[in-house]
């Protein structure tokens, strides 16, 4: 829950209003100066008319150097960020050859498989030599290899469902599966903060879409009752089927979903459930099996479980795990399976090796160590940040923690100052978050050691003092806990 102080809301609105006014002023002068210049469009309509790209031109371009920073090494705990410069006040950025080594608090590397791993990389290189980088064909024609079949069985066993199907990209998994499951005459009820891929899939399916308040099972029940009683719009015929879509961990809030209550509501009203575990598979739960294990929900109670391999397993692609009939139906009808190139074999091998490490089947206990490391790291970092007085969102055990910034000017200030002190953070603003609620998002990894985290905390604390984002200052004694920890090292 975000507790927005009143004064902060007023100052943030004032800042945005000022930026908007300045943008309009500059547009006005640009129009006057461009009256003489000839338009080289020659009768074509412009790509963006009027105010369509106002936000991009006048607000985003000013702080463009905070986003899209290129790196020159693997996205591990420490990486090399390429330095960039601009000659025309951030309109275009040029890369230099200089790099600076920074602490990585931004990449999705929850279990530390991002860089070359001692067990996974030799297997990946072997599969690269045997199967080469791509299969150049769709899955049904010539793109199905033994590796793909092995991975599907392994994923089904890991998640706890009877069968699974894999795709080459997580985004495409959502946008191509939802239209095959529900079409015209069906109803999709999705959480208000769901990811763009789910929104696209819901829009492309032709079904009606309703939204329920974020993580609110009581409001979900109200929406379900109202919709089942009313039926389809205008014709009032009964709905063909209803699917409720939620996510395991919401990436912009760091919150876990209230899964047991939502499943209970859905079972009562006979709605199907679809769980998107992009950020939670492999990262939470005692053996890494996701939110179901953490919250004590039986996977058999969820109809369809979806996840991606990008975040915790250091590869690319997505999967769907469900009952055997549903997976067989998907294999026959899903366009992403029939028309898209199959997943690259080395990436498949990376996921197979990573899951074996997590399950302990490679013969070592590195998996269990990684899982306990990420849990400790997340809880430690979150509690320290809260003690320092920052406003941190998210639940315990979740490796994603957003720190609220609110003011638009603090976004580039925080980002640039942290980079200068060799800590790389990710800042997000509108349109990925609501206008007033800009934040910096920290992603913890199992490959961060205790010293890395303490260094990160120091830098964030110093920069937080400079920028002024410690909205909830605490008593003096608690702030000395950091010094006590340093003395113990």
């Amino acid at each position: 829950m975000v507790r927005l102080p009143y004064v902060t809301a007023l100052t943030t609105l004032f800042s945005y209003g000022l930026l908007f006014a300045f943008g309009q002023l500059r547009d006005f002068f640009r129009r006057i100066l461009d009256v003489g210049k000839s338009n080289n469009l020659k009768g074509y309509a412009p790509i963006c008319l009027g105010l369509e790209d106002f936000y991009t031109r006048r607000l985003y371009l000013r702080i463009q150097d905070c986003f899209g920073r290129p790196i020159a090494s693997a996205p591990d705990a420490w990486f090399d960020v390429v330095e960039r410069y601009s000659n025309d006040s951030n309109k275009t950025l040029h890369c230099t050859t200089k790099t600076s080594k920074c602490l990585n608090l931004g990449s999705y590397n929850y279990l530390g498989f991002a860089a070359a791993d001692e067990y996974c990389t030799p297997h990946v290189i072997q599969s690269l030599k045997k199967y080469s980088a791509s299969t150049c064909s769709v899955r049904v024609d010539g793109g199905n290899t033994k590796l793909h079949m092995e991975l599907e069985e392994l994923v089904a066993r890991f998640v706890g469902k009877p069968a699974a199907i894999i795709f080459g990209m997580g985004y495409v998994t959502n946008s191509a599966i939802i239209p095959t499951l529900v079409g015209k005459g069906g109803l999709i009820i999705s959480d208000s903060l769901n990811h763009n891929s789910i929104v696209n899939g819901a829009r492309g399916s032709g079904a009606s879409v309703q939204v329920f308040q974020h993580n609110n099972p009581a409001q979900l029940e109200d929406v379900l009752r109202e919709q089942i009683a009313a039926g389809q719009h205008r014709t009032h015929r009964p709905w063909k089927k209803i699917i409720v879509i939620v996510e395991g961990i919401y990436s912009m809030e760091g919150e876990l979903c209230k899964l047991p209550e939502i499943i209970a509501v859905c079972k009562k009203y006979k709605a199907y459930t679809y769980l998107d575990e992009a950020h939670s598979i492999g990262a939470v739960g005692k053996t890494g099996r996701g939110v179901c294990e953490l919250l004590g929900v039986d996977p058999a109670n969820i109809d369809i479980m979806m996840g991606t391999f990008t975040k915790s397993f250091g590869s690319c692609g997505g999967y769907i795990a469900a009952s055997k009939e549903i997976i067989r139906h998907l294999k026959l009808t899903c366009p992403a399976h029939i028309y898209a190139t199959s997943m690259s074999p080395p990436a498949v091998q990376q996921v197979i090796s990573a899951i074996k490490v997590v399950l302990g089947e490679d013969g070592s206990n590195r998996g269990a160590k990684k899982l306990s490391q990420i849990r400790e790291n997340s809880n430690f970092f979150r509690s320290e940040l809260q003690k320092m007085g920052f406003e941190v969102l998210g639940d315990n055990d979740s490796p994603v923690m957003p720190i609220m910034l609110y003011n638009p000017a603090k976004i580039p200030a925080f980002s640039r100052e942290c980079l200068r002190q060799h800590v790389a953070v990710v800042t997000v603003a509108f349109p990925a978050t609501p206008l007033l609620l800009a934040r910096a998002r920290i992603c913890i990894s199992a490959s961060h050691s205790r010293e890395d985290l303490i260094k990160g905390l120091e830098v964030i604390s110093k920069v937080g003092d400079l920028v002024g984002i410690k909205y909830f200052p605490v008593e003096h004694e608690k702030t000395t806990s950091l010094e006590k920890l340093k003395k113990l090292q």
Partner: protein
Amino acid sequence: MEVILPIANATAAAIARVSAAFNAPHARAVVFGIHIDGHLVVEGLLIAAILFQLSRKSYKPPKKPLTEKEIDELCDEWKPEPLCPPIKEGARIDTPTLECAAGPHTTIDGKEVVNFASANYLGLIGNEKIIDSCVGSVEKYGVGSCGPRGFYGTIDVHLDCEAKIAKFLGTQDSILYSYGISTIFSVIPAFCKKGDIIVADEGVHWAVQNGLQLSRSTVVYFKHNDMASLASTLEKLTHGNKRTEKIRRYIVVEAIYQNSGQVAPLDEIIRLKEKYRFRVILEESHSFGVLGKSGRGLAEHYGVPIEKIDIVTAGMGNALATDGGFCTGSVRVVDHQRLSSSGYVFSASLPPYLATAAISAVNHLEENPAVLSNLRSNIALLHKG
């Protein structure tokens, strides 16, 4: 006789009274110095009656919202369809499982077979140099890129790959996507919004159709690869329509159609596009690295300068033997996609070893143009037979 006279007198007296009443002087009442006539009172009463009727609400039957008990009953008796329909018996597909790389000769279930199913046009699967560069990339960067392009997922090999492709094709800039089919169905909604006009070929493949559906614009189809049909459609849409000056208009075609294998006549399309002021989106997944003297695609095949095509997209899963896709065009076109293309912004970036494979594949194509003549002689052989 005596009876008639009093009746006649009474009637005459009545008539005289009535006529006297009608002929009486009009001023009966004087209020505030204004004379009020009798008929005004009657008219006033009529107007009051009309206003009273107009001001009354028309009759509507009273609304009765559903009670909680009724909603409970409806929820109990609602029965949903099963999530997936039952599988028909004849609809089984047994996909072949490969046991080694999908090159020209491959192994399925222990048998050596000749592979006519993979889109490995230049034979780059199994190429030693490409595999070595990929191995180096995996050792340096790992497998995945662990982040979207905006949040530390941009690795220097991505920037190198984009520059390489732009230089190879001769365009100003290019942008990489992480999956082949997501390229076209992210590009189309990024440029075409509600209210725009798109003229598309009937035979475009599923990903293009999905992009057209997601864009919410008005889509008009023309007959597959029929230039006369395209010309008449463009004429119909722009004839006498002054508003089309402000609306964005696009033509979407594929270079080699995936569903029918035909090649689109680019010179005709460019001529029509310049006449009617439409922008062209060209999908070159199967023609990049195949058509043209040096493999630069449909524009080289027809001798059309590449600047005339506004947006070129291609998936790299065919000739280049890697995965992912790219889109090239002018700087304005590419910059617009970096913030508004959903498959680029909201998805993790291409794994670095695949970008390295793309760079090596383009290098190989530049250094060995002989592969194209091999490809062409094979095609001619199969067509003749």
